Structures are given as C-alpha cells and as structure tokens.
C-alpha cells in the first residue's frame, strides 16, 4: 500500500526532532561540564565528577571553590537561561510578534529600578537587592496588566505599549538615581548589563522558583499553537483565550522578574533562542518550547564561561557576551528569512 505523503513528512519531523533533542541534550551536558571544569582554578573532568559525588571536602581548597563558587554559578546560569528563553518563546507566541522578548513587558525595567534603589540606599545585596528587584518586577507586572485589561479582556498591543512606556519612565528615574549615587554608578551599570559574578547559593535559592514556572507553558502548547492563527480564530476553535493569555503572561513575567533579580538584564537570549528553536523544529510549541529550554540553558552557561574566562582574571558582564554573539546571529537570520 502506498504511504500517503503527509505521513512521510510527519515521520520526517519526528525522526529529525529525536536527533535534534539528542544533540541538544549532549550539548547542554558538555557545556555544563566545561563550565564546571574551566576557570581560574582549572579542574580535570575526572575531578569534576569526583567533587560532584564526594560532596564538599573542607580541607581541599579546590573543592571549596567548586562547591561555593562554581557550582551555584553554573546552576544559576542554567536556570536563568531556560527562564529567559521560555519567557521569550511564550511572549512571541502570545504577541504573534517575532520581535518580542522577555523585556517588552517592562517587568525587567521595574526589576532594574528596584535593584538600583537597593544599591542607591546602600542596602546589603543579600537579600535586599534581590528582594527589591523582585518587588519592582511584580509591581510593574500588575501595573502593565491593569493598563492592558479592560472589561475583562487583555489587549496584547496595549500591553506592549504600556510595557515600553513604563520602561522609559523607569529608566529616567533610574538615570536620576545613578547621577546622584556617586561612587555606586559602576555597580549599578555592572548589574544592569547582567552578570553571574559573585552569585552563590542564596541566589540559587531564589532562582529555584523558576523550576515550577518552567513547567507551566508546556501545558498550553496546543493553545499556543492555535493562538498563532490569531485570537479570534483561537476563540472559534474553542480556546479560552483570555485565561490562556493571562496565565502565560503572568508566568513569562515572573520568569523574567526572578531572572533579572538574580542576574541583571541579560539580553538577546530570550529573543534569539526561540527563533533558533523555531527554525530547527518548526512552530509547533511542544517541540519548540522544549528545544528553547535546552538551548537557553546551554547558551547561557557557555556565555558565562566566556564572560569569566575571555579576559581573565577580570570578568566582563555576561549580557555583553550574549549580545555580542546574539546580535550578528539575529541579523543573519533576518537576512536569511525575509518577511
């Protein structure tokens, strides 16, 4: 019996995606391993495995470095990378706009303002900087949400415009604070550019909130697919559009706020990674979200590795690294895929 054409095609995508996922997982493992092994204190791969399984050994300084500095930093990069990529993927789907990234909601600017205030009033970083950033992000989230919602319906364009407007507003407040803060300006700037430098288990504890949030979008992969036809058509096909938008918008904003609060503003991961995933496996969200998550973590761990080793012993902000590699790549993609 002749096989219908579509089956061949579907099988092709399935087979291809197994290969892609295998490769992505392998890349993630290799990147993680490399990030754990490479640094000012170099460790052999065998040592890394050894340290991981034997736990922290008080007498061994390398073990202390591994457990107090390197491991939490890598875990944080994994979490933040996945969070930003997934938030970007959700927002691009919801906004039907390939230029959306986690920062369009204004949540990151709110978090940045919160952090700047914490630095300005000279509160200790732990826990206050993180707390202020999360609070700033959440306040922004609810403000934007309130502006965009009318008669129970959330208008996605009003949301975008409100987010962008609030970002500008917050930035100007922040600029005033920075000018008046004197010596702390470089700390603020460094923080704004995004970095995992000096982050430890305290930040990891905060960032663990990301884990349950990462699961949520996967429950809505069918709805996200259908929403790519527009909100009207999604309603016609039976999707409770308002509920889905509300949940996913809040999840994406929370992922962003938590990420920004522990690592500052790291650009381009949330924009480019979902594109890359879509180009590789098509727009179907079940596959696209999974791949975004894996790629987001990989990219972030590698970027952080570059950030701390490229000009060792001094570090560059990881946000600089992601933009440095992300921008040319994105322009390449724009040229390759017109329209």
């Amino acid at each position, binding site marked *: 019996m002749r096989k219908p054409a579509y089956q061949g*095609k579907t099988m092709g995508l399935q087979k291809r995606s197994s290969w892609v996922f295998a490769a992505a997982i392998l890349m993630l493992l290799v990147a993680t391993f490399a990030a754990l092994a490479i640094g000012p204190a170099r460790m052999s791969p065998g040592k890394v495995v050894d340290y991981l399984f034997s736990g922290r050994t008080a007498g061994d300084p390398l073990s202390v470095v591994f457990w107090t500095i390197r491991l939490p930093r890598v875990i944080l990069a994994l979490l933040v990378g996945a969070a930003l990529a997934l938030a970007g993927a959700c927002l691009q789907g919801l906004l039907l706009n390939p230029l959306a990234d986690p920062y369009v909601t204004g949540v990151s600017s709110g978090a940045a303002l919160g952090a700047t205030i914490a630095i300005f009033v000279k509160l200790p970083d732990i826990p206050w900087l993180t707390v202020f950033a999360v609070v700033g992000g959440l306040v922004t989230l609810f403000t934007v949400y309130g502006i965009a919602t009318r008669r129970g319906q959330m208008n996605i364009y009003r949301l975008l415009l409100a987010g962008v407007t609030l970002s500008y507003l917050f930035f100007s407040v922040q600029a005033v604070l920075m000018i008046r803060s004197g010596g702390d300006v470089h700390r603020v700037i460094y923080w704004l550019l995004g970095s995992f430098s000096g982050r430890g288990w305290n930040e990891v504890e905060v960032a663990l909130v990301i884990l349950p949030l990462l699961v949520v979008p996967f429950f809505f992969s069918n709805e996200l*697919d259908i929403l790519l036809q527009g909100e009207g058509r999604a309603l*016609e*096909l*039976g999707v409770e559009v308002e509920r889905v938008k509300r949940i996913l918008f809040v999840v994406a904003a929370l992922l962003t706020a938590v990420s920004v609060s522990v690592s500052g503003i790291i650009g381009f991961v949330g924009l480019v990674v979902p594109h890359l995933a879509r180009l590789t496996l098509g*727009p179907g969200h079940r596959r696209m979200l999974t791949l975004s998550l894996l790629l987001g973590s990989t990219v972030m761990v590698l970027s952080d590795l570059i950030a701390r080793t490229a000009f060792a012993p001094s570090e560059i902000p990881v946000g600089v690294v992601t933009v440095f590699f992300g921008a040319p790549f994105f322009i390449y993609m724009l040229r390759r895929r017109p329209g």
Partner: protein
Amino acid sequence: MPLIELDRITFSYDDTPAINGLSLSVGEGDFLGIVGPNGSGKSTLLKLIDGLLAPDQGSSLISGRPADQYGRRELARKLAIVPQSYTLDFDFTARQVVEMGRYCRKGEPGRAVVNELLERMGVEALAGRPFNELSGGEKQMFVLAQALAQQPEVLLLDEPASHLDVSHQLALFDMLVELNSEGLTVVCVLHDLNLALLYFKRMAMLSEGGLFVEGAPEEVLSPEMIASVYGVQAYMHKHAGRTFLTFSPRRRPARKLRVHLICGGGTGASLMRRLLDLGYRVSAGVVNAMDTDEVTGRELGLPLAAEAPFTTITDSAHRENMALARAADVIVLTAMPVGAGNFKNVVAVRQAAESGKQVLALSGVEERDFTQGAAAELSGAPGLRYVASDDEVVEGLEEIWESSSLLPAE
C-alpha cells in the same frame, strides 16, 4: 427546539449600530443562505451567533441555552465557523492546521477523523505540504476541513467562496450540500446571489442590520427585493433549467427616448438589454410567445405585442404593435428573418416610417427574406435608414438623442 434562536438582537460597535432588533431562527438540518449589501450586518450576525460578540439587547440561544453560558470548548463542539479570511504566518503543514480543529474534542480519538475528512475532500495528498505554499482554493478547503474536524452540529461560513475560482466554488458548495444531506446544519453568508439561488433551500436577506425578508430563494432574491435592498435593477431569468439573475449597470443615464424594436427569433434580445442598460425606454413586437425575444422582453418587463407560438401575426397583434410603434420615438428593425408568418412586421415598419417615425433597419433584408417581397415593401419608405450592425443602431440612436429636436423641453 431550534438550534439557533436569535430574538430581537441589537448590537453596536461603540457608537455605530450594526444589528437592529434582528430575529432569526435556524432549525436542525437547515441550509440557510444569508445575503445583504456590505455593512448590512452579515458578518456581525455570525459573530453574534458564535458568541464572539455579545448582543447589547435581545437573546441568542444555542439549543435553548444562552450562547454566553457555554464554555468556548463546548460551543466549538456545537458550532464551527469558516472565517472570511484566514492567514497564518507560521510554517505549519496543512495537516497540522486541520488537526487544530480537534482541540475542542480533546480526549476523543482524532487521527481517524482527520484522515477520513482529508480523504473525503480529496486533499490528503496535499496534507503534508506547508499550508502557506498552497493555493488560495486549496487553503480554503483546509480551513473548511479544520472547521469540520470540530464535528459541529452547525457550520457557519462567512463568504467562503469569495476568493475561489469557479471550480473550487462549486466543489465547496457541492460539499456543503452533501454534508447538509447527512444532517449538518449550514448557515452561509455570501455575496454571489446566483450561487445563492443555485444552492440554498432557504434565504435570508439583511438590510441595515435587520432581517429584510426570509423565505424561498426565488422569493427573497426577486428583482423587487434586490431593488429595494441593494438599489440595483436586477432581472430574473430562467434558462436551461436554471434560474439566475443579471444586473443592470448602476448608473443609467436617463434617455427619455422611446425605442420600439420590431424583431423576433432572438434577433432583438441583446439590443433590448443593451438599450435598456443605456437608459432608453424599450418596447418590442410582434414576437411569438416562447420565442427568445418574447421571453427576454418579458423577463426585462418590456411592453410587448405578442402572438401565440408559431402563429401567423393576426390583425389584433399587428394593431398592438402599431400602437407601441406610435408611442415610440424611433423604430428599429432587427436582423429578423422574414417569412409569411411575420410579414406583417415588415408592413408595420413601412407604416411607421410613412407616419413620420425615424426608422433604423439592419441592412441585408434580401438575404433574410423568404417571401421575396420585404425589400420591395420597404423601398422608398421615408425616414428609413439602413445600418450595418447592432453597434450602429446604438450609435444612430445616440445621434438622434443628441439632435436637439428630441431633447425634452424641460
């Protein structure tokens, strides 16, 4: 209990009223076509039925329950809609597009349903292709398949054929007829009134947000209804077993000139329509009943002098003909074959010419004359001018119209 029951619904977009107190009921197995001018509320009506819009006043019941008391998923299992336009900016395959229609049937087996649908619509070979690489007609078939994958009780369509070529149009409507015969209720908004006449059991015509008339297609789409709702002159024809409509141009310059065609055997039909569309007042005679010229003249509502079928023109018909000729400003003799039966028509031309009427006659009378006497009858008739074609008839009439003697005094 009707499937859909709209009761005195009112709806406005902000301050612009779109639907004014409209009531409509759709029963199980109905095959209802909805027509109406642009802006008469057709698309809004579908959105109100599908609960995408909530009425300001009045009630919309689906199987006896208010539409807004349904969950979206539940409603999608009852009603499916084929939208007026459908765009997708992402690279899904055509099959994936259809599968999205199964969303409201979550938990039910879907693969077999989709396969059966694709096969039935004859598009399974295209299903693996990227949706956006398909032609407009193919896309529309897949959007229809997406709606049918919902396995709805009612299918609502919003101008589904407007972007389709004739073959896809017919394929689509044939499919709808077939589905309807299997029990699917179909409500379809469309612009093409002839497609509506061809396919629908029942029609509703909207005007300014209200139901203007509802009933059998030939009643709803009568020239009178069309004139009052669309403001367009329409004619209903029955030909080759079909009923169809034709329309006159919207701008009909007033030509108060009255033209009487002496014709028969289909030689006058196209001139009748052409002169009418140009704004002349037209009459014709003597034509035999059932002859093409007589049928056309009757469908166009012209004053006619008619004779029984295949019958020699009687004196009374001739007198009627002469009365119409006298009332006219210009007489036109078409390329009518002349035989013993209609020789009186030639006599009528001569008499009219002698009474001072201007006459335009198609040349070549001898070749069409089976009596050998027509040319002689016409020779020397005053005011008779020969022209070579229908085009020259029109030109000649325009000249006469423009010559001042016939311009109305007022």
